[in-house]
């Protein structure tokens, strides 16, 4: 399109939209650094009277949490943070690894199962609460209930379509001739992929890994229904605070929310050029 | 409707505040009903020129007139100038009919008027049976017709064609070239035609303007331009093979010659008597068509045949004269052997000299006529 300059009116629209987009982010950041006296102020206080990091400390201190005298939330967030890291990192690594194999297989050898798309589609569109039920049954029979192994297995399966198709689109972008040159050199096919294909798509590999991490880190429903006492993740912990305290623990909850979102937003900015590709299974490349 | 005249007056287009000069002061006058070809290599500024005429780009300075009236301040859609893109740029999701009607629909013309105009143009272009086909399903030359027709429907005063044949396959290109000639004669439009292909320019245009580095070097009738290149660049660009160009000097009495002689490295050529050129540096041009082979003893130049290329109707022979390679076009009946020693002869009148500093052609004889 013929590129024109922004008019004043359009600039104003853009500014208004920016305010709407950023205000909620501003609010959660401010709440996270509000001292307890500001939490329940009515009308709400926009900027903390005395910015503090005490909420982040409280989050990891069971005794401090008890002091607020709210039942059921004596559990510190330590376990949830460790749980989220453990589940997300392991599941992401496995998903990307398995997805990478599959991506090369599909892109270079046409190993595409005709029924795969339907299975994936059904798996994705099946309401998660309902697919969680068979997991509860199966896991209780093989002793995986309330275990990270079970949760990670689900995460891998749920993100596998994303990692496979996103990576496939990166492999597709790579001219075949480059690998073929390596194969003529006498290297075996697998070796050619290891030494040529994978190093050449490392940018895409990074983007995919980060994208899958975002998906796993954000997951809520499965963690909610498959965790009891052993397993916890940040989203589940956040939901627990809301349930247990009717949300009155504003500052502490906000601190946890900030802890949960900051890594994702940073990772998101890093790979923003590839977000559309990830979200659309490689259909839209930027 | 009378056919309008188009004039470009000292047209300049600069980018990045003058750091890049795409078009460097062009003057061109296109007569009513004339087809003029802007010929030049890619990047010479010919497409930028078209964009300015059509209004997609604003000139940095200079003016554009249609029938004496400046159009630079008129928006592109109202200039009455049509442009056909190299890649046709048809609207892929529309049918041929919708494509053809587009210019009238957006001007909110009446339904009957649109239908009539579309039918008329479809008739002219032989697309009557294809009106309801989606444009994306068309072949290259059909898209080309749609692109032209879509423009003709708006009855432009001037039609601009940007490399209209270069995206077509060879056979389609030949057919389309004939088609364009027919349209030209039937509609009698004023046309500017941009191309890098001299055959296209030679076969379609009344006159050719050769562009190089943002400047027009020469505007000449198509029938004359190959014989009378005005500039070293034009001489080296036109013709197949182009003129043999030898950069050298004219000095008086070299190597025992009576009068002044032209030297180019080891090669020396005595100039005919009456040559009005002073001593200095020049470029000598020898048209391959005006050279002929002759027995060594009778010819001013002698060498060996290093390449023989048959082209059907004629033969291009490359003769190494000392270290200089000269292209000679001979009738197909003459077939010298490779490595054969031959003499090269020419009519002194066919010699062309270009100034060593100006690169412009010089009249070498006192009478103002080329030697």
């Amino acid at each position, binding site marked *: *399109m013929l590129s024109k300059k922004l008019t004043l009116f*359009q600039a104003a*629209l853009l500014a208004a*939209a920016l305010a709407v987009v950023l205000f*909620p982010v501003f*609010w*959660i950041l401010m709440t996270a650094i509000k001292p307890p006296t500001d939490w329940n102020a009515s009308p*709400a206080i926009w900027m903390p009277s005395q910015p503090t990091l005490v909420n982040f400390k409280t989050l990891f201190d069971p005794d401090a949490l008890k002091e607020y005298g709210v039942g059921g939330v004596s559990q510190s967030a330590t376990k949830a943070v460790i749980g989220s890291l453990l589940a997300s990192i392991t599941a992401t690594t496995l998903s990307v690894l398995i997805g990478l*194999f*599959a991506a090369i*297989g*599909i*892109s*270079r050898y*046409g*190993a595409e199962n005709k029924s795969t*798309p339907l*299975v*994936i589609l059904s*798996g994705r*569109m*099946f309401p*998660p*609460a*309902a697919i969680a*039920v*068979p997991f509860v049954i*199966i896991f209780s029979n093989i002793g995986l209930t309330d275990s990270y192994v079970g949760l990670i297995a689900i995460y891998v*399966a749920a*993100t596998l*379509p994303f990692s496979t*198709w996103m990576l496939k*689109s990166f492999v*597709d972008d790579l001219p075949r001739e480059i690998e073929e040159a390596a194969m003529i050199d006498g290297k075996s096919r697998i070796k050619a992929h290891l030494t040529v294909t994978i190093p050449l798509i490392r940018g895409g590999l990074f983007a995919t890994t980060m994208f899958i991490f*975002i998906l*796993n880190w954000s997951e*809520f*429903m499965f963690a909610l*229904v498959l965790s009891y006492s052993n397993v916890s993740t940040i989203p589940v912990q956040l939901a627990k605070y809301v349930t247990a305290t009717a949300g009155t623990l504003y500052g502490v909850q906000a601190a946890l929310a900030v802890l*949960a*979102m900051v890594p*994702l937003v940073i*990772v*998101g900015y890093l790979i923003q050029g590839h*977000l*559309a590709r990830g979200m*659309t299974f490689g*259909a839209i*490349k930027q | 409707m009378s056919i309008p005249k188009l004039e470009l007056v000292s047209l300049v287009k600069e980018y990045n505040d003058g750091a890049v000069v795409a078009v460097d002061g062009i003057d061109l006058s296109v007569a009513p009903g004339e087809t003029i070809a802007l010929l030049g290599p890619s990047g010479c500024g010919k497409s930028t020129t078209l964009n300015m005429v059509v209004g997609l780009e604003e000139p940095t300075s200079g003016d554009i007139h249609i029938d004496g009236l400046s159009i630079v301040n008129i928006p*592109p*859609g109202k200039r009455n100038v*049509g*442009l056909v893109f190299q890649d046709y740029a048809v*609207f892929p*999701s*529309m049918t041929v009919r919708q494509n053809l009607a587009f210019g009238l629909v*957006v*001007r909110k013309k009446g339904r009957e008027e649109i239908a009539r105009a579309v039918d008329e143009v479809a008739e002219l272009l032989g697309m009557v049976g294809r009106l309801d086909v989606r444009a994306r399903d068309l072949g290259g030359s059909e898209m080309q017709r749609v692109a032209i027709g*879509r423009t003709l429907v*708006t009855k432009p005063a001037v039609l601009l064609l940007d490399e209209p044949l270069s995206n077509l396959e060879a056979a389609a290109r030949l057919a389309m070239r004939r088609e364009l000639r027919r349209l030209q004669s039937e509609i009698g439009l004023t046309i500017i035609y941009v191309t890098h292909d001299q055959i296209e320019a030679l076969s379609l245009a009344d006159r050719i303007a050769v562009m190089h580095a943002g400047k027009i070097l020469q505007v000449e009738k198509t029938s004359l331009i190959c014989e009378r290149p005005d500039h070293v660049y034009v001489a080296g660009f036109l013709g197949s093979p182009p003129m043999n160009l030898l950069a050298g000097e004219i000095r008086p009495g070299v190597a025992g010659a009576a009068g002044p002689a032209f030297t180019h490295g080891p090669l020396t050529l005595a100039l005919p008597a009456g040559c009005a050129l002073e001593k200095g540096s020049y470029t000598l041009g020898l048209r391959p068509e005006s050279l002929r082979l002759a027995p060594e003893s009778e010819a001013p130049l002698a060498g060996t045949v290093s390449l023989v290329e048959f082209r059907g109707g004629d033969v291009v022979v490359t003769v190494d004269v000392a270290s200089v390679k000269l292209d000679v076009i001979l009738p197909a009946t003459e077939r010298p052997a490779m490595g054969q020693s031959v003499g090269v002869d020419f009519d002194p009148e066919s010699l062309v000299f270009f100034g060593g500093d100006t690169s412009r052609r010089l009249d070498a004889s006192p009478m103002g006529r080329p030697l």
Partner: protein
Amino acid sequence: MASPPGPTHPADAPGLSPAAPHGGGKPPRAKGGNIGLALTLPGQIVSILVLVIPLLVALYMSFTDWSPTRGSLFDAEFVGFENYSELLIWDTRFLYAVLRTLCISAVCLALEFAFGLSLAVLFMRRFRGKSLLFSAFLTPMMILPVVVGYIFWMLFQSSGPVNQILEFVLGPDVALEWFRSAPLAVTAVIITEVWHWTPLFFLILLSGLNSVPENPVRAAVILGANPRQVFWRVVMPTLKPVIIVAFVIRTMEIIKLFDEVFMLTRGGPGSATETISLYIYKLAFNDFQLAYGAAAAFLVLLGALGLIHLLLLPVRNQLLEVKR
């Protein structure tokens, strides 16, 4: 996973990209068939173990009257289509959850599309700081749904900033109880969802706009079209496949809307914001009607597949074409 937008039909999707994939032509099936199979095997195994088997178990379960209090699933009584007929004929709560989800989805998608397109069009203009602003506008979709739900839960408190702003603009009497009134709760859910996912439409539509070929647009300008005509007659038809992709992806996700609503309202007040996912969740984990919940889930799956199919229908030809 409930949070991120899911896949479009993977078989259709990869062909859509404007630049034809270089290596994606004809894979040499004959040469490397075994290698290809071996490479995809781990993925196939995971999919079968963690997707196909649970789906089959759920399918079996949906034809029984099983509930965890009644012992093993395989001892449960087979009841045929009883769960399905109950759901379709008698369960008005299910019907309302479906209709409610569809309505919320329709409104959300329409708004997300409108805002996303407007933003994308503004981003086609030239201005300074564009790349910074681009990142800023993408921020919401990078935040996890649970956190988004929590943020907006705070914003919509009766003494929260949204009410403060409304009172500042409309006068001091507008003390809205967002989570106590059905229409307001639905509005809050929609606002949250639109804020969260408009960036995805923006992102997809902007990349679509950027890949609209320039010359047809220029041709339209030269033929006399004004900017509005150029946009609606030339640009939008080119964008159609991209728009459909955006809608398909969002539809698949919003049908499962859960996280944000769970944090915001838990489906309340009453069942005013109870989405399909929330209803099934409550059936399974509050009322322990697991078999019944599974049947509901399969009905939803069938409906959603049908809906996606309808969405893809108008561009099927176009998708195939680009693929060629």
